[in-house]
């Protein structure tokens, strides 16, 4: 664990990207292969299957530290990370060890077949031979979420530099359904690939928000417009007689959307589509709120399948007849996509996301204004000549969303954030007026500057009326402008409504709470959309 801890420390001890990449590169040049493959896995969001619950970890840590469990629980939100809280609270280790990262991962995996008591002894023994930093990383192996200041993109760059491989080729090879059990470092990174696994997705191409006026993009004839759907971005892979569905977060979602299986009946193998999964009924998309219950489910109950059936609205063709089309221009990919889609029957679970015809920018702006009626969030603008790039790149793809809806709301509850936002109040509940009562209707976490979060944190501490565990009820005094992309009826909420992407856009120091919006105002918005 020492080498891995040294890597973590080097990354943690600098704010400079170049220094972080250099530290990773050096690590990939020198660390043992068995460690490297796990490091790649961890930094790309994979982790060993959990053998110990976080509840057990808390119990055992409190016991080892000789503090009551409640005290550890109280410390956790202040530290902001459970793995770190436990690493800090434990007594200093009695021993040290040179065992490498993969050893500890193997040890954790062996616990799957161990008794609870053996698990406990193994964890306590590990803690007793690891330094605070090593322990933190060891705990992270269990609790997951290796966000330690290096993105997957930077990791890929460092790996490319260390291995001499092309960065975009590597980015593609690191996608999809591999694990350190199924493949070793040299096979994943260094070896000539004879056959890529059928399930492997391409890196998604992501668009930036268009901040300028579209006129800045030049000749409208160079651009293709599409609706920006409010669904789940997905890649549908048809290869070798079967299919795979990947989320943008590289989660395999094949089983969650069984409707898409029928695509294999109509579309030949060797096809990869990029598109949006939306709930679809009677020829129109349903609101995102209807799709939402399906996201968390690994298996889908029949009622839900009936209530919110999905299709893929395809807008790009990345592979056809087994050939990677990403380097060809969008216009060509689109023509092939349209031809392919024309051959599908109307009840196929894949439909083309239509291109929106427009001759000039004002026409498109007028069309965009109607986006909500089309159940879309706005329009996408894609340069006809653009290749399909990997990751978020400026220049060729833009999302041009509708201006959000806004309401002025009163802050009534506050809770501290986690991680980088630990010890700051960043998670707020807002209310609107219903007669003389303030009715909570949304939470929001983002949109303020660090300085504003500091100010409101100091204020919350001085103006707490009551505490409910980590949540503080505060004096109704501050009004914030809340922006959101959509509004839906929701029987689960007291206010009867649910917002899509709520965030704070402005702290309305100028507004007294009496001037905040009302529940009736929200219902009017609901009716209008």
């Amino acid at each position, binding site marked *: 664990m020492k080498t891995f801890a040294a890597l973590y420390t080097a990354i943690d001890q600098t*704010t400079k990207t170049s220094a972080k990449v250099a530290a990773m590169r050096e690590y990939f040049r020198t660390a043992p292969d068995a460690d490297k493959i796990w490091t790649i896995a961890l930094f790309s969001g994979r982790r060993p299957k959990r053998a110990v619950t976080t509840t057990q970890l808390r119990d055992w840590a409190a016991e080892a530290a000789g503090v009551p469990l409640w005290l550890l629980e109280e410390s956790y939100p202040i530290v902001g990370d459970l793995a770190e809280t436990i690493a800090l609270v434990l007594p200093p280790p009695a021993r040290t060890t040179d065992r490498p990262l993969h050893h500890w991962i193997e040890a954790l995996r062996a616990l799957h077949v161990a008794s609870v008591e053996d698990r406990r002894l193994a964890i306590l023994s590990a803690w007793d031979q690891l330094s605070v930093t090593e322990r933190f990383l060891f705990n992270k192996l269990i609790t997951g979420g290796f966000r330690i200041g290096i993105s997957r993109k930077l990791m890929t760059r460092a790996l490319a530099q260390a291995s001499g491989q092309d960065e975009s080729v590597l980015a593609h090879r690191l996608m999809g359904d591999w694990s350190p059990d199924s493949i070793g470092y040299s096979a994943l990174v260094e070896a000539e690939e004879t056959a890529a696994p059928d399930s492997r997705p391409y890196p998604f191409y992501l668009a930036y928000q268009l901040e300028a006026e579209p006129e800045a993009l030049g000749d409208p004839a160079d651009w293709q417009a599409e609706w920006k759907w409010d669904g789940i971005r997905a890649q549908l892979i048809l290869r070798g007689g079967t299919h795979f569905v990947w989320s943008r977060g590289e989660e395999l979602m094949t089983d969650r959307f069984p409707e898409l299986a029928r695509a294999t009946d109509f579309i030949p193998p060797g096809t990869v589509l990029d598109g949006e999964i939306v709930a679809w009924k009677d020829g129109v998309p349903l609101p995102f709120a209807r799709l939402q219950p399906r996201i968390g489910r690994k298996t889908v109950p029949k009622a839900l399948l009936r209530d919110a059936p999905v299709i893929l609205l395809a807008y790009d063709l990345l592979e056809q007849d087994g050939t990677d089309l990403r380097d060809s221009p969008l216009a060509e990919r689109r023509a092939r996509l349209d031809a392919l889609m024309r051959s599908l029957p109307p009840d196929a679970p894949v439909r083309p996301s239509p291109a929106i015809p427009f001759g000039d920018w004002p026409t498109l702006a007028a069309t965009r204004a109607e986006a909500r009626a089309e159940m879309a969030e706005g329009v996408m603008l894609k340069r006809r000549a653009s290749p399909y790039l990997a990751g978020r790149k400026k220049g060729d793809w833009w999302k041009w969303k509708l201006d959000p809806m806004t309401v002025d709301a009163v802050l009534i509850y506050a809770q501290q954030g986690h*991680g980088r936002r630990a*010890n700051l109040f960043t998670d707020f509940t807002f209310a609107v007026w219903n007669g003389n009562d303030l009715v909570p209707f949304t939470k929001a976490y983002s949109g303020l500057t660090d300085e504003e979060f500091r100010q409101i944190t100091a204020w919350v501490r001085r103006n707490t009326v009551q505490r409910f565990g980590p949540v503080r009820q505060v004096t109704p005094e501050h009004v914030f402008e809340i922006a959101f992309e959509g509004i839906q009826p929701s029987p689960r909420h007291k206010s009867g409504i649910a917002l899509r992407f709520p965030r704070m856009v402005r702290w309305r120091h100028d507004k007294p709470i009496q001037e905040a919006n009302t529940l009736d105002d929200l219902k009017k918005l609901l009716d209008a959309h």
Partner: protein
Amino acid sequence: MTPVLRATDRGLYCAAGDFFIDPWRPVDRALITHGHSDHARSGHGRYLCTRAAAPVLRHRLGDIRVETLPYGEERRIGDATVSFHPAGHLPGSAQIRVAVGGEVWVASGDYKTTPDGLCEPFEPVRCHSFITECTFGLPVFKWAPQPEVAAQINAWWAQAAGQGRFALLGAYSLGKAQRVLSLLDPGIGPVLTHGAVEATNAVLRAQGLPLPETTHVTPDTDLKARAGALVIAPPSALGSSWARRFGPATTAFASGWMALRGIRRRRAGDRGFVLSDHADWPGLLDAIRATGAETVYATHGYTEIFARYLNSAGWNAQPLLTEYGGEETEPESPA
């Protein structure tokens, strides 16, 4: 029985002696534990503090009426007997002992229990009731020995100096800055200071505190000739235009809060050195035990959690509401 000290909206008040300890609103008579701004405020009629704390108080508060007492010397005020005892927080800092009849209370002010080689070491005082700070009153806070932290700071500086870069260290200008100074290896290079730090250095040097040589950075300072120097500045100066003159410097902060990764990342410095002038968790518990007090009041920090723990461990404890640094967790506060 009337308590010897009680919390009021102006500060800790002793009715028997009609005085306040570290009051936050103007009062006639204020006993001051130390010169940090949340403890020593302006506007009081009379000030009483240790002899070593007085110059800083005068420097910060201007023309005030100050009397001083040497450590350990008793003074009768009304029906109360007061004395000042080293708190180990910074040079001149004190705990204040107040005895009325046979009843002894101690207000800790801010303190740390491990000697730092610079200020008068903490001295436990036996009492019936102890008003303790608990800025770091959680079991996750455990400080490494000072020489270890000193070695980390010097290694960081030496690396920057080796690359010809400046090393900017954010440290509170009274206390932390001088403590850091005393830990530096002068062999690595020159030490530069921000005006706020240098002004405090001057006051402390004048009263005999042995501090290494420093150079105050002014617009005329030849920075090229001093490349690779260590620069000590208040934390807030590090992100300011003032810091830009040092070019591609490496930045760090020295504070107990740097023990937490989230706060370290929020500060966005390259490094965070865990160096505090407050007691850590074991230090707080040791100090409380050493007083022999049966009743403990917790101020300044995670008071409710800390008091709850003390109660579970057999003390009679409760939080006490004050307006000291409070839950402030930014290294701007002198932690």
